[in-house]
């Protein structure tokens, strides 16, 4: 099969000679099936999981090997053409938003599991491998890959590395950063580097640490070594229905105060429950204003003791129904409701914004009350799904764009982030900054903080070609000394460089 190429991009963008030339080169080197130039096809790549931002890429390339990725990046760098990496396109911050004059490098064909070494607790995969497929590769040996974003059956490891993805079980097991021990990366000039490996804690700078969560701005990973962990001896999942969010919140605080460290503590409010019920009929307690999912795992004896404790705490906090998963199928059924909640919003609202913010756990009840107030004042419904254990909120702002509610919804969504910052939290827990939240970075960080990050970025990508326009709120030149400036930059005035 081949991607049909009816017109090269030069025809669509007459001024874009560089892209036109690259398209021909890529067709010659990678074959016609690896290059997309037709506009109707390019448009299917114009957005990722966040459809609010769209931009038709100049060119899409689908390499099949790490060498091909290196080649494509090298040619882009040599031609000063910007490029953006994309995996399954499930990101929720516009991190894979293409550049109109650039190349979108799609990694969905790099799907090999290169090495499985359960004795070392390591799996080596290509970036296009789906998160859940890592767990599948080691399931028979009694291991799993712990970071579990709700989109784990779709999202790819490359994207997980870029976003430092979390998930429900990160409360106990940590984020992607805690599970990546080695990376092979194509740097923005097209050279290939390897950092870390099978062994933990290599000497020198923690470059793996810098790359994880860099949102595709420091290079494109072509191989990821991840740590897998043994499946716990016993898992218990508790589903508790409460009459108020406050009661459920109280239960969470009490569980943590009791010294129990659950694998996951998830909370959903009544609107989220309604959406999940209509999507997957998950059978949550009827009439609940809030449900709590508490998962405990570990050695059997420890889990039994904790289970009794959690049940007692939920009861004291006012839970009117407590259900413990009978078996693995039942546990999957409980989680299905939670994991489908985002996408299920389509069932109860025409449009919605998935927000992602973090607050200190103790501020949760107050922030939730503030969100409810905000919702009542604006008339915009807000559903709440969140990782209660680590204060990671996912408010879903529901609206109907055909009824002119977009601006009001965006205002509510932004106000929620401000609430998070006011309470000492953060503008993103796990979805990343991408294109969507760069404007808030200035509120979270000082100029100096942002300059430090820019210097790191410029060390990797002096030409600013690698996923440009993401993460940072203000354009800045590489080589420029940090600090405030007024007027036109001297380098720019001399015609030697452009502000990015």
């Amino acid at each position, binding site marked *: 099969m081949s991607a*049909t190429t*009816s017109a090269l991009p030069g025809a669509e963008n007459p001024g874009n000679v560089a892209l036109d030339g690259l398209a021909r080169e890529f067709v010659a080197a990678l074959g016609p099936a690896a290059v997309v130039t037709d*506009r109707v*096809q390019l448009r299917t*790549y114009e957005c990722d999981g966040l459809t609010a931002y769209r931009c038709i890429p100049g060119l899409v390339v689908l390499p099949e090997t790490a060498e091909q990725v290196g080649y494509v990046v090298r040619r882009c760098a040599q031609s000063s053409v910007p490029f953006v990496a994309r995996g399954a396109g499930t990101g929720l911050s516009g991190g894979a938003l293409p550049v109109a004059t650039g190349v979108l490098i799609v990694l969905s064909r790099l799907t090999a599991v290169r090495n499985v070494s359960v004795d070392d607790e390591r799996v080596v995969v290509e970036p296009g491998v789906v998160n859940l497929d890592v767990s599948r590769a080691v399931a028979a040996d009694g291991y799993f890959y712990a970071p579990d974003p709700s989109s784990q059956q779709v*999202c790819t490891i490359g994207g997980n590395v870029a976003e430092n993805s979390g998930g429900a079980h990160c409360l106990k097991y940590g984020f992607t950063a805690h599970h990546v021990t080695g990376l092979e990366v194509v740097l923005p000039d097209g050279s290939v580097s390897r950092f870390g490996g099978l062994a933990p804690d290599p000497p020198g700078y923690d470059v793996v640490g810098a790359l994880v969560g860099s949102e595709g701005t420091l290079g494109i990973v072509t191989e990821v070594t991840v740590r897998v962990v043994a499946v716990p001896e016993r898992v218990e999942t508790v589903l508790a229905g409460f009459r108020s969010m406050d009661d459920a919140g109280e239960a969470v605080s009490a569980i943590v105060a009791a010294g129990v460290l659950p694998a996951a503590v998830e909370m959903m409010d009544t609107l989220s429950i309604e959406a999940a019920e209509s*999507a997957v009929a998950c059978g949550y307690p009827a009439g609940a204003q809030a449900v709590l999912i508490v998962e405990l795992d570990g050695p059997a004896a420890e889990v039994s003791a904790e289970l009794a404790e959690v049940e007692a705490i939920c009861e004291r906090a006012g839970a009117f129904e407590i259900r413990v998963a009978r078996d693995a199928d039942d546990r999957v059924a409980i989680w299905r409701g939670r994991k*489908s909640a*985002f996408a*299920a919003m389509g069932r109860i609202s025409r449009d919605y914004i998935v927000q992602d913010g973090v607050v200190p756990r103790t501020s949760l009840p107050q922030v939730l009350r503030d969100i409810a107030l905000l919702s009542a004042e604006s008339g915009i419904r807000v559903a709440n799904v969140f990782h209660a254990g680590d204060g990671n909120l996912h408010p879903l702002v529901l609206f109907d764009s055909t009824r002119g509610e977009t601006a009001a919804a965006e205002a509510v969504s932004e106000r929620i982030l401000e609430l998070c910052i006011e309470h000492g939290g953060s503008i993103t827990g796990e979805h990343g900054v991408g294109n969507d939240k760069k404007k808030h970075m200035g509120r979270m960080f000082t100029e100096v903080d942002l300059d430090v990050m820019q210097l790191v970025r410029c060390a990797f990508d002096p030409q600013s070609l690698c996923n440009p326009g993401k993460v940072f709120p203000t354009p800045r030149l590489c080589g420029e000394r940090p600090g405030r400036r007024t007027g036109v930059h001297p380098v720019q005035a001399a015609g030697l460089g452009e502000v990015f």
Partner: protein
Amino acid sequence: MPSEGAWDERHPPPTELLDDCVHCGFCLPTCPTYVLWGEEMDSPRGRIYLMAEGHDGEPLSEPMVTHFDRCLGCMACVTACPSGVQYDRLIEATRAQVERRFPRSARERALRSLVFKTFPYPRRLHALRPFLRAYQKSGLRLPLPAKLTAMQRLLPPLGPASPVAELTPARGPRRARVGMLLGCVQREFFADVNAATVRVLTAEGCDVVAPSVQGCCGALSLHMGREDEAVRFAKRLIATFEPLGLDVIVVNAAGCGSAMKDYGWLLRDEAGWASRGAAFSAKVRDVSEWLVELGPGATRHALDVSVAYHDACHLAHAQRITSAPRELLRAIPGVEIREIEEAAICCGSAGVYNLLQPQAAGELGARKAANVAATGADVLVTANPGCLMQIRTALADRGIPMRLAHIVEVLDASIRRDPTLLGP
């Protein structure tokens, strides 16, 4: 931007259904073509995007049609979608528009015409049968174009024809009076499956009514966008079965069943037919679904056999029937069910897809064969003639010896205490 979009006013893919897609991507890993090629425009999300582009002024171009044509219509995405996107309705509307409005090459037209002048006509298939059988027995292989070669290779070994009686009375007390769809391919190429279906149904206390002239259900036409033809076939089938006073109409081919359960929708614009279609659809049951609903009457004898059960897409995704066949198999003493990896991914049969897109179908078939073989089961069991042909060919290509059976053949063997199912 071109001013005229891809769609005309006659049932374009509805924008309100397109709007249901929130672009989450949960459909990607269950889409056979995305699994093969990793391309956005060969995924359900991408195809929905293309449909929306068509409303947005993009013309019905060759690249756009290519991606619609490559969709197998397996509906795994409908099962996977958390937002309830009705991709089945969307692709059906899209295909009808493509079929009416997109000019195909002479070669494509000729192939489609050959398929649609034979497959949906049992009598024409029947007339061809002796020639095909002689051709098979001769061992000759004519040098044919790729797509016709695909057709020739998929043909199962043909035995003598064995017609089903118009009425076969229940054995023992009568529990129901059921109609039976004989099918086109099923009747001519899988006569044993129909014979087994009659035996199982009668053993379970059903009078089986099977009009010898009943025509095609229209599934193939419907799934290929030949809407008017599908409507014609549907009306004829309804008219044939309507006066027979049946409790239910049993179907042993998943693709046919899924189309027949949707006649109310298919005939929505036909004066006087919409309600007749809906009433007919309400009586349609897949044979597994019906046997579970009826409950076992006849004794099941032990079969010492391990079974890999393959979910036919039009049973699992289009009709949402996955537990009934497993329940029937589990009820047979000695039968061990083995699940197949990547069960949700289509085997590549998909109606006539393996004839029109032989390369993609071949890759999917090879993938399925590898997963089927990995179960190490004695028999592959499924509920659709298309899957049986496709998987048989794919297994044979890889030199994997495995017996294949329709689920009613397994039930029949158990009820009749006939161990030939396990034989060589």
